[in-house]
């Protein structure tokens, strides 16, 4: 068995156990969240003018979708369903499988967060290298300060700032929703243009808030590599600056790839505030709504999905590191 296959098997086994543990914990936490969703629904119907008897009957029918039996029976049903990838049925969307609801919401989270993360990664590492090389100059300082500043601003503040600037003061971009409904969905310029237009501010928020971290991490990594003997040797041998630059970048970027893989794992759960501000219908917004609706099955499913994403990202990061860093491979082989 190769080193990678061995590591993969070990990771998968550990990951599976972690998923089961997390599923168990989240099941019991979610099912013990206080609050009476039936009373809230009843009050809502009464406020809308429904008679008390009719409202009571309406609530009774709706909450027929709630799992029945003791908590232990519900747990065993949940776990056996999980094995079949059946996460139950949503109460707030009666009859709809939780997996379908999660699938719909996930795409709206993954695409903008992925775009924002990759954009910030690319810009951050390029400018990070530059900031390290020019660290004694004004431009290097300015880049480092911009990184610290943006890294320090909370995501939701940045989001609101962008809304104020680009949707209110200079109204050139939409501040809410994923796409204009007036465009026929499909592979046409109008629809794609609208999708992109609506994604600009959320993506910019993700990118700007993450950019600071990348530039600072890359700068620090490059500065460490710059002091290594092989760089000095390359300079003494009179190599071209572009080749030296490649040496530096390749070695300095290794730890950042690990962070990138982990960031991608966190992307599913990291968008709660942004999606709320931009009314973007992703997993974060779904999670907030499911808590408000006390939709236990949906809440549990969302928590589980976020956890699985982090576990998978950890596995991918580790394997990726094994592939790209020969030192890790040779260390394993030497054992």
């Amino acid at each position, binding site marked *: 068995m190769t080193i990678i296959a061995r590591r993969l098997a070990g990771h998968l086994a550990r990951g599976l156990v972690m998923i089961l543990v997390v599923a168990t914990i989240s099941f019991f936490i979610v099912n013990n969240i206080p609050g009476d969703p039936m009373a809230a629904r009843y009050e809502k119907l009464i406020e809308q003018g429904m008679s008390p008897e009719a409202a009571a009957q309406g609530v009774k029918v709706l909450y027929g979708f709630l799992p029945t039996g003791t908590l232990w029976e519900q747990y065993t049903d949940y776990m056996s369903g999980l094995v079949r990838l059946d996460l139950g049925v949503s109460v707030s969307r009666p009859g709809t499988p939780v997996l379908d609801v999660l699938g719909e919401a996930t795409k709206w989270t993954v695409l903008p967060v992925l775009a924002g993360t990759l954009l910030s990664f690319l810009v951050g590492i390029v400018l990070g290298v530059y900031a390290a090389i020019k660290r004694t100059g004004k431009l290097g300082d300015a880049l480092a300060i911009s990184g610290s500043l943006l890294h320090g601003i909370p995501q939701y503040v940045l989001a609101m700032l962008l809304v104020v600037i680009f949707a209110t003061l200079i109204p050139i971009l939409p501040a809410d929703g994923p796409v204009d409904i007036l465009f026929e969905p499909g592979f*046409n310029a*109008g629809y794609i243009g609208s999708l992109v237009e609506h994604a600009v501010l959320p993506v910019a928020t993700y990118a700007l808030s993450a950019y600071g971290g990348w530039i600072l991490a890359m700068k620090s990594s490059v500065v460490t590599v710059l002091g290594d003997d092989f760089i000095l040797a390359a300079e003494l041998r009179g190599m071209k600056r572009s080749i030296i630059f490649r040496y530096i970048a390749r070695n300095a970027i290794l730890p950042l790839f690990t962070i990138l893989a982990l960031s991608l794992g966190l992307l599913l759960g990291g968008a709660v505030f942004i999606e709320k501000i931009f*009314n973007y219908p992703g997993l974060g917004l779904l999670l907030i709504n499911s808590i408000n609706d006390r939709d236990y099955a949906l809440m549990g499913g969302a928590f589980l999905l976020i956890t699985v994403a982090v576990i998978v990202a950890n596995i991918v990061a580790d394997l990726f590191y094994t592939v790209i860093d020969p030192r890790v491979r040779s260390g394993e082989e030497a054992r």
Partner: protein
Amino acid sequence: MKRLAAAVTLLGLATVTACSGGSTTQSGSGGGGGLFTTIDVNRPGLDAAAPPNPYNPKGNSFSAFNAMKIGWVKNHLTDPNQALPGIAESWEIAPDNSAITLKLQPNAKWSDGQPVTTEDVRMSIGIAYTQGSTAFSVTPGAAGAAAEVTVVDDKTLKITQNMDNPSPKFARGVLDTTVLPSHVWKDVLPADFWDKLKTARGEGAEAEKAREEITALGQKVLAFAPAKDVSAGPFVLERVNPGEALLVKNKHFYNAANVAPAQVKFLNFTGNEQIWNYLTAGKLDHSGFVAAPTDVMNRIKQAPGNEVIKGYSPVAVGMGFNQSKKPYDNVHVRRGLAYLINRDEVTKVASPEGGTPATTTTGIHQKAAPAWIGDTVGQLEPYKPDPAKAEEEFKQAGLTKKDGKWTLSDGSPWKVSMTAPSGFSDWISAQENIKSQLIKNGVDAEVVTVADYPLYLEELAAGKYDVGFWLMALGPAPYDIYQRLYGASNGWTNVAGKVTHAAPGKGGNWMGGPEEIEVEGIGKINPGELTAKLNTATAEEAKPIMTQLAKAANQDLPVIQLWDYVNNQFVSNSRFTGWPHDDEILRLGTGVLASGVWIQLGMVKSKQ
């Protein structure tokens, strides 16, 4: 590598260029009649995957736009049965309220061109039974339940009321029923449904089983997903994404010629802030009531074209006491607090645009009160701010004042602890204001906020709070008004006319008031039983009962009525005009979007 990148770039450009030609199918801004933009203020969070099913809580069915009711019940002060035409062009209510005969719109058609028939209405009534409604209930002996549904001819239908336990709002219950296409929904109900219903109305194990089967059908109804929307309303659902829903004009609608907009766009929202943003940006042509602080309200009004139409909303808010807890079991404490709270000030701070300070506590909205209890309103104690009277009441309750602060009779400290759910900004502002008013008068007070409304209701029902806010006066029907004070929250449960009383702290009885009250000038009354009588009383029979209950509520103060809500409707005159200003049609039935009714009846006109 560079060549590959260049090739990919060129290919991408070519694809986008090719697609940008004829395949862009933007519907434009409304093709003639214009685009009407609104929100479903009752239901936050659009769900693109939800079916066009009016019974599904997330269903992409918008009442009065692509879902029709038999009639659109009005917001009348006292008569619950007044309505505007919906699928029924007209109706006749028997003088003794024993039956309603519906005449359907002669030209009503579904969006697929099929005519709307009495069979559609009959099947919709069957569906309503599975969900529970005032008129169509399987609970044996339920007040105002229908007895028979008879098809008279292809456009006429007669529904009789079970006169064993009649209700004055029977006709309202019938009219407020959504009509569905039987050719789409026919398989949802089993073939033997009406036989099952007959069995369910009986007694014994078989009837119980039939009732359970009908209730179980309710889940099938909720989950039913028609392949496409078939609407008898002025619009039909075209498509939905998680941010917006698009409806287009239904050319088969019976009054299509008078429907102004060509398209309707529903915007998604998850909280009030988003609605405020839409309104301040002038994006919405109409929005139903949404609470807004003064500064936001001013910004909304300043947006070009915006107008706020104010009307009657049969809802009030009261400060409810948990009488299981001391010292709130003592009426003099409750009265003393009422004399310390300046309701004008509270309303000015908490809900200046959305509320009118309550003139006194009657349990009825001040606008409807004169119609129900006449001159009695003027005879009731108004509880105007009066610290001297408050002191007198507190002394009668045995409270003592030490170093300027009121303490309990045993000398231990007293703090009025008020609880509100997070996000209810008007309630929290009101409680903060009351707190400062009480502290100024020597009564220690605090405001506690809890995470959200479901948690608030659970803990309130469990009797965990001393004082909480409570929606009340939910008209127009007298029973609905008073069951908020003398219903389950105060121990009385009314099932099919049989009234039972639960002890304080049990069965949701968080108010914990006494089962009988000695009312000055009336004598001993059981307010829960009197309230239950309202469920079957005619308007004239209800008036003396309501007078007794108003006096009881005013004297005993299970709640202090703080403000009566005002129905603020937000409209924009930029693209459409003709908005009605009539109180009675600003609020129209359960979950109904009023602007849909205004549009389908031809009141709203396009400016384009």
